[in-house]
């Protein structure tokens, strides 16, 4: 196993801190938009921009928005993972601004995953 550097430890500490925030109620949900080269080229910045507009329009204060790198499924970008407290994460693929709007309203705010846009339920957690 490779040795951990100080930077690795700082990254782990940051991830744990953000997960703790989700558990402790600072966030009820977390939306992670994948921002690898593939995601960015496919339009992931528009996805996060739409999410920011929705957060503002709906005056939502308990949803954590964050980004991560390439998830390894470049042909299905833009992708996002929605995690609600104590529920399995859902990974959404081939996103558009309209799709993420529906996912935000129905899943993030309403608690009902949009199955037709989901790749998988219970995939890896993106902390």
């Amino acid at each position, binding site marked *: 196993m490779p040795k951990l550097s100080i930077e690795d430890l700082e990254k782990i500490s940051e991830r744990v801190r953000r997960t703790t925030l989700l558990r402790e109620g600072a966030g009820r949900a977390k939306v992670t938009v994948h*921002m690898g080269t593939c995601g*960015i080229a496919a339009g992931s910045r528009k996805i996060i921009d739409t*999410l920011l507009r929705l957060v503002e329009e709906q005056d*939502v*204060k308990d949803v954590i928005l964050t980004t991560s*790198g390439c998830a390894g499924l470049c042909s299905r970008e833009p992708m996002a993972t929605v995690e609600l407290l104590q529920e399995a994460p859902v990974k959404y693929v081939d996103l558009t601004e309209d799709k993420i709007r529906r996912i935000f309203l129905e899943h993030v705010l309403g608690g009902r995953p949009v199955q037709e846009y989901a790749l998988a339920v219970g995939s890896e957690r993106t902390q």
Partner: protein
Amino acid sequence: MEDLSLHILDIVENSIDAGARKIQIEICEDLRKDLLSIEIADDGKGMDEGTVKKALDPFFTTKTVRKVGLGLSLFREAARQANGDLEVQSKAGQGTKLRATFQYSHIDRKPLGDMAKTVITLIIGHPEIRFVYLHRKDGHKSRFDTDKLKTKGDLTAMNALEVVNLVRKNWPELR
């Protein structure tokens, strides 16, 4: 990628993956010299000489989720299409600095795009990192440093809406 601000977002995400805690983005639009330059400097783990040589090869990556590393080679291609180029300087343990140049008036130069959206996306995704953004154009200079926001509160403990509102308040040039 449609515009240069998306390339910048992509390159900065690489810096973050390399463990950078401070990332400076500097854009200079020099119309007199017909030159656009973009510099991205980070204090991440850097690369040794051998890795720097391979970094622009699209079939080389240090990542494990896939076998290609297109970000830098796409950025260099965008620069070369506009009579420019991309230089990479890096030292293991000390960070990396990239400088891309473009002929400003070249018909194939991609537009700069929406840098505000790129910077906000970076801050939202990585509030723990210090981002410094400098933009020079026609003698005007704009500078935004997320360190200035730290006096207003802990960005990592704020929700997205609070972060965006704080950035808007403290970055007058942001529209």
